[in-house]
């Protein structure tokens, strides 16, 4: 394989995963948190595809494709939930969704 080795892709993947995790833990807008989750899933996808390339085994790619579908599904439900929150005039802010505690 010409160009960068699999390890380089994995470093990218780790950084993106960390960025996504940071977004989930830091941001208050549920929309952006949802996008950060997408980032994490895509980081995992990159790792899967890199490993698939390295192993010469297509299973990883198939897995990644399935993950894409799952990610889309999560977005669909997340958006539905956010729309429902908005319709109820509830604040779109995860810090304010804290009536349940203790």
């Amino acid at each position, binding site marked *: 394989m010409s160009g960068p080795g699999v390890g380089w892709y*994995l470093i990218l993947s780790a950084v993106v*995963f960390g960025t*996504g*995790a940071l977004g*989930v833990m830091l941001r208050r807008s*549920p929309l952006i*948190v*949802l996008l950060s*989750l997408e980032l*994490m*899933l895509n*980081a*995992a996808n990159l*790792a*899967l595809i*890199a*490993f698939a390339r*390295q*192993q010469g*085994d297509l*299973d*990883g790619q*198939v*897995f990644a494709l*399935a*993950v894409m579908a*799952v990610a889309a*599904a*999560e977005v669909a*439900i*997340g958006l*539905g*939930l*956010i729309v*429902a*929150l908005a*319709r*109820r005039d*509830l604040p779109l802010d*995860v810090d304010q*969704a*804290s*009536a*349940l*505690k*203790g």
Partner: protein
Amino acid sequence: MIDTPKVDWFALGPTLALLGASGVALLASVLVPAWMRKGVAAGLAFLGFALAAILGGAVFAETASPETTIAGSMVQDRLGAFAQVVVGAIGAIVVLVSWAEPRRSHRGEYYALLAAAGAGMVFFVTASNLMTLFLGLEWFSLCLYVLVAYDTHRARSLEAGLKYLIVGGFGSAILLFGSALVYGATGELGFAEIAAAGAGSDPFLVAGLAMVLGGLAFKVSAAPFHMWTPDVYQGSPSSVTSFMSAATKVAAMLVLLRVLTTAFPEEREIWTVAVAVLAAVSLVWGNLAAFAQRDVKRLLAFSSVSHAGFMLVAVAAGTEAGAEALLYYLVPYAAMSVGAFAVVAARERELGRDVSLEDLAGLGWERPLLGLSLWVFMLGFAGFPLTGGMFGKLFVFTAAYEAGDWWLVVLGVLATAVSIAYYLNVVRWLYMRTGADLGVALAGGSPPRDAALEVAVALTVLVTVGSFFAAQPILDAAADAARSLPF
């Protein structure tokens, strides 16, 4: 010409039954006249769950030794079939619990989603590679996200849904990344192949194992991955809580056991210790936090965290006896959990608000069946005799002692002793009438007798007590199921 694999319809039976029920219920909730939608959908879901349990039983009976089917993506074995029977039974009972739940809209679709979640779980427990594992997990999780937020007119339900979705998505992402690392280390997705690859102590493999363990620990709500549990249990519609607390725990716990033993047998020394630590943390955290709770659903949620601890003690043994103990434990636990939340649901419907401990005052006299049942469940949770909870704990401790985890036995016994205090507190409230009792005003008068729920509660009591008196058959089945795992 592509050589498609032979599809084993028999092994897929329970999943297909529920999936079919779900699909037809979905159609029915759009097509049939509005007044009968709920009835038709609920009936279909009930039939689906019952059929899944029956077919699971058939698979159990027919499968002597485990075999993977459909190109190795799922396994047909008694472990999975055992879980399918349990989940099917839980689902059928939850349908009864749900029946009289006040619901504003989408009454039919609720049952379709419930059946779909059940289908996801009964598939999940047969998953035999990392891809089907992840997909199965997402399948039922997505259904549960929706179900948790189902009461969209309640802010708390939506809040619970949001929390579950985001933290759940976070957990899934970690599980997925872990799977990717395991795949990278071995080049395999199938559990057996991962074990056979003999990657030993490859850093990718152990890091991936840690992340997979974390992701599954999240689903079984083991501390410290449990923090979503009380919020979500409290906020969701009570019938959904009862389903989650029982079925999710059964499915995720079994898959955790399956993954650890089939895919990572060589790393046993590492994960047994890690699981033991998780178990200890869950026991301590769950029990202590339960003390401080006033809301009954939250109290039960923390109790479910502590029970995750007990179950993990069995997993941590890493032996066939441990697996047996875990499988037995799940039966009474599931029954008690469904039943306890069902009783809370009944009280909630009466009062029209969240149920705190004080709100239970007098329930034992007004609704003797429910009061007595809740009493039985609390004693069962505490591991009192005459309920299966006691044998569950006994087997778990025995397995742990055998495996040399005597410190977990001591911790478990202490945790049990402590836990009795808050369980009994519930019982104490049930039978008392206080001045505050008068403040417990019924919303619009006492609702009509909820026969479906009472039948459901009676069934769970039957299982709770029955698993004590008929411990042997359950234990035999658990032993058969545990034999499917390579120990």
